[in-house]
């Protein structure tokens, strides 16, 4: 299987506080990987290190055979290959829905406006937001914002989609619409790396589940292995806490 991203011995500390300790981990093409674990275990930091929103303190991130932490790699070109969906949506407040999905394509990928708008409409259709292209972010509900954010990331046509707790800031009744979209994306063969607290989603959709605890990957395996037969004591304890 082709590895899209291969992470070796990744470390990250904030001052003396070591958040990630020697992470080895890879994502294969077409695979859906869910990262679970309690707050402060380093899951979000790992995701943010992968697209360099946080600068790793050590280790390698290998993308297409190249260590992007080495030398003067074009991090801007690299980031366009990773679609990021944030917990807080972070839609551009000064752009309407369509423009949110278009601006990156035009300014970064140098696509023509016409092409960019076609691509944007295609993905806004996928997330069911094509009717709202004239709306400003402040006029949308949380679930709608997050679906636009997903379309914005998809519009860049990345190799991997990174989801950083995409439903954690949503009202319970809006979690469903976002998860439905993500499920469909997973079925369409998109490579996805999802940090989530939605155990049901991880169980149903993931090809592989990674459990993180205190800055290390404590256990990884198929959803059955992790949810039905966890080997580690701390995995069992975590699952007991979250699936009460």
């Amino acid at each position: 299987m082709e590895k899209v991203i291969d992470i070796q011995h990744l470390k990250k500390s904030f001052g003396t506080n070591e958040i990630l300790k020697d992470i080895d981990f890879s994502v294969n093409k077409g695979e859906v990987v869910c990262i679970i674990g309690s707050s402060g275990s380093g899951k979000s930091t790992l995701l943010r290190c992968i697209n360099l929103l946080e600068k790793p303190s050590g280790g390698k991130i290998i993308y297409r055979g190249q260590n992007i932490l080495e030398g003067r790699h074009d991090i801007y070109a690299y980031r366009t290959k990773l679609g990021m969906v944030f917990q807080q949506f972070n839609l551009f407040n000064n752009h309407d829905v369509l423009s949110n999905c278009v601006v990156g394509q035009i300014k970064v990928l140098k696509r023509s406006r016409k092409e960019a708008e076609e691509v944007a409409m295609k993905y806004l259709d996928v997330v069911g937001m094509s009717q709202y292209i004239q709306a400003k972010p402040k006029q949308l509900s949380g679930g709608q914002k997050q679906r636009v954010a997903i379309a914005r990331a998809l519009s860049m046509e990345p190799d991997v989609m990174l989801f950083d707790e995409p439903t954690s800031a949503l009202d319970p009744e809006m979690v469903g619409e976002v998860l439905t979209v993500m499920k469909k994306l997973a079925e369409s063969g998109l490579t996805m790396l999802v940090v989530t607290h939605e155990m049901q989603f991880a169980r149903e959709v993931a090809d592989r589940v990674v459990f993180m605890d205190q800055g290390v990957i404590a256990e990884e395996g198929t959803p059955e292995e992790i949810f039905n037969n966890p080997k580690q004591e701390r995995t069992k304890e975590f699952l007991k806490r979250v699936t009460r």
Partner: protein
Amino acid sequence: MSWKWLTRIITTYWPMFLRGAGMTLYISIIGTIIGSIIGLLIGTIRTIPKPNHGFGRVILKIVNVILTIYVEFFRGTPMIVQATVIYYGALLFMGIDMNRNFAAIFIVSINTGAYIAEIVRGGIISIDQGQFEAAHAIGMNHIKTMWNVILPQVIRNILPAIGNEFVINIKDTSVLNVIAVTELFFQSKSIAGNNFRYFETYFVTSIIYLIMTLTVTRILRLLERRLDGPDNFNVIPGNQMQVQKPESALRRKQHAG
């Protein structure tokens, strides 16, 4: 106050008042616009993330020190002193006999720039960090992030403060009479010197200043409202899509592809 004098001053000297008011508006409009551009540029430079490499780091550090000196100097001295020092200084040490109107615009611009640089800094700090991260995450560099995402929001947010600067400039251009710029205050001084009717003359002057500042305030309020855009938006019909069922959209996409 005599009404007779008041009307006589207005009817006799209205072209001078008008020219003076025109010059005042001209200097303060251009000065505020150039000052705003200076402020936005400085704000952008000051928020450049620290580069990793030694050379760029040193350059940035030097630039930042220069910018800090600039801001502190022009905020910390009165404009009337700056005008005198710059105008006569250029003449004395560099032999440059500046056109007075150019000197006026130059002084107002760099003075306003220093204030607006600080306003912009505050505006940038107030933008949610998530906006920067989202822009970086789709591959925008610092300039693209600032230009397409951050500064449009900053400008909207600091518009009231820029309007404030504009109003201050309309009033403070009066100090430029020390370098004999023929703005409204200078003209009033000439008129009063002609007729010795100080109160009536400056009463008319004050009314003109008030009309200018109030008009500017109203226009800026309108501009703000325009920038905010409409409160409502249209749902585009025709492209009916069940919000909860994106699978139909995907299926359609696969059919199309």
